[in-house]
């Protein structure tokens, strides 16, 4: 047998242990420690941490395609938001007749917009199982179709980035329309309960926080299984020298589409876990800026490391919470500066750099320079 990369390596164990400790400590400090105590974690913080974990899962999903497959998706926020909307639709249906207008079937915004009946695509969302399936299927199907078309036509590099951005932009415009039947500008909000638990209740908040932590661990493991297998090695080969893999008989479009679809589903789950914790989903989640922000989380943590992506998401969002609270104007300066500094001085990110320094050379998936684009091609065209 060839020596196989262990499914969970040293940084993986550290990550999972830290995650488990976090997911145990926060509930204990929230539920068991009295409110007056200095160690008490208030419930709003539990939800904030839960939000970070959902973002971390989104970052892991992006790292799977960017770090290992070279697909810089500037539209991953779209999959996240679609998952969020699927969950939001379930939560809307759970409100029942408790809405402002008291209509047992139609959500408030539909009553307001003079809908007579529930649109067909809302059918089934009163069942949690159906909604959960849609959380996976809708982003997955979109990614599958979009990815298959794009990868089959060999759209790569910045061209791919630009059309993924156009995708999320088009979706944003679409979801802003009231005619979409998904709440238009205001989105979906005023949720009451999920599987019978009130979304405001302390117990629910803690529960969904832990659920998000578990989802993150599972997402990490799935990404890990994919990347340490021969499949993952081919994925990296595709990233580094796509045309070479083709001459070896591989079809890169199959490999990329699979990774892209799994990644989109993971992003959808992250969105679904995010929505009940923040209490709203609106078309702003599709904004191209959100997707690019996700990219910087991964870049800060270190792409192609998975653990780094999760770490980057938590660190950057923590910094965002602190900075927007303390000096709102400074946040965009800091974020913008982070983009510049990380790309110029820390191309491997925090975890990637740490592994390079301390972890020996074979631990991280080494990142070669990316292929240059059009003018470079013209240059090559001159030779014989």
């Amino acid at each position, binding site marked *: *047998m*060839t020596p196989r990369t262990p499914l969970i390596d040293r940084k993986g164990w550290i990550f999972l242990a830290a995650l488990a400790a976090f997911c145990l400590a926060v509930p204990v400090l929230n539920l068991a420690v009295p409110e007056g105590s200095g160690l008490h974690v208030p419930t709003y913080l539990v939800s904030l941490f839960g939000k970070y974990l959902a973002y971390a899962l989104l970052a892991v999903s992006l790292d799977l395609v960017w770090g290992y497959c070279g697909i810089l998706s500037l539209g991953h926020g779209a999959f996240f938001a679609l998952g969020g909307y699927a969950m939001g639709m379930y939560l809307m249906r759970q409100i029942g007749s408790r809405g402002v207008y008291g209509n047992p079937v139609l959500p408030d915004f539909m009553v307001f917009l003079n809908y007579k009946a529930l649109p067909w695509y809302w059918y089934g969302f009163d069942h949690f199982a159906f909604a959960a399936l849609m959380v996976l299927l809708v982003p997955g199907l979109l990614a599958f179709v979009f990815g298959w078309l794009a990868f089959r036509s060999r759209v790569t590099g910045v061209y791919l980035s630009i059309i993924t951005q156009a995708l999320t932009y088009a979706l944003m415009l679409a979801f802003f329309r009231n005619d979409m039947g998904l709440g238009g500008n205001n989105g979906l909000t005023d949720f009451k309960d999920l599987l019978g638990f009130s979304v405001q209740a302390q117990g629910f908040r803690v529960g969904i926080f832990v659920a998000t932590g578990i989802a993150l661990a599972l997402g990490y493991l799935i990404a890990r299984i994919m990347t340490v297998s021969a499949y993952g090695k081919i994925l990296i080969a595709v990233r580094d020298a796509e045309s*070479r893999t083709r001459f070896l008989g*591989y079809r890169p479009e199959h490999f990329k589409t699979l990774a892209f679809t799994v990644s989109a589903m993971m992003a959808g789950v992250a969105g679904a876990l995010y929505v009940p914790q923040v209490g709203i989903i609106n078309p702003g989640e599709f904004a191209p800026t959100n997707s690019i922000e996700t990219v910087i989380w991964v870049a800060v943590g270190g792409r192609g490391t998975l653990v780094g992506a999760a770490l980057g998401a938590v660190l950057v969002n923590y910094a965002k919470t602190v900075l927007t609270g303390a000096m709102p104007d400074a946040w965009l300066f800091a974020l913008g500066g982070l983009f510049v500094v990380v790309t110029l001085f820390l191309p491997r990110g925090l975890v990637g750099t740490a592994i390079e320094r301390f972890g020996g050379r074979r631990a991280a998936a080494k990142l070669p320079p990316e292929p240059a684009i059009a003018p470079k091609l013209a240059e090559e065209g001159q030779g*014989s």
Partner: protein
Amino acid sequence: MSTDLLEHPDARGPANRKRETDALLYVDDLRVTFDGYKALRGLSLTLARGELRAIIGPNGAGKTTMMDCITGKTRPDSGIALFDGTHDLLKSDEPAIADLGIGRKFQKPTVFESHTVADNILLALKGPRAAFASLFGWRNRVARARIDALLETVGLLAHRDRPAADLSHGQKQWLEIGMLLAQDPKLLLVDEPVAGMTDAETAETARLLRRIAGEHAVLVVEHDMHFVRDLGCRVTCLHEGAVLAEGSIDAVSADPRVVEVYLGR
């Protein structure tokens, strides 16, 4: 005769086609134009099973473009390229052609730099290429000995766990040849295999290619005349997108037209 084949691809059964050519590779009248520049102007070539053939020619003669056509990278404007007598190479894409049994080594050595030397061989090994199969399938359980045997052949066993990026230029050439062997193709297309190699390495490469030939057909593009002489095989000289001369190395290098092409301008 050959144009008939193009016009009525379904009129003859595979059995009939087989009789059309016994050659492993049959290329006839290939024409390629890039933005008005005629890269190939009616190139024709046949290669028998197990044959070793060297292709020479000055820059711009169309050597690489010919390989691009055979491997599906470039679609020619017209012409025929048949593999094994029955497979129309011009209707297939790169993975399908690789699957038929044509392996290619590039002019610039192209290995997977982030992977170890062993993993490069692993990915090249002949076997199912589907995405799902690679996730849990056979390729995850390849015996170490099988890879080591191949590495032994190309002399890289000592480097098996090093990242390919750390190899020297010559070693990368060897690794790529090793990957070709792992693919176990019927036809190897080898583009400038000895660029950047020392004389000793060059001689070793020639020995290796001679050994491979017979079991596999090998088409070598090379500028290095000593190396071509070492191969000791038939030589085809291309010029301006067509065959200029063909024969033994001595006959070709004595051909006044070949001399003029190389020295005359």
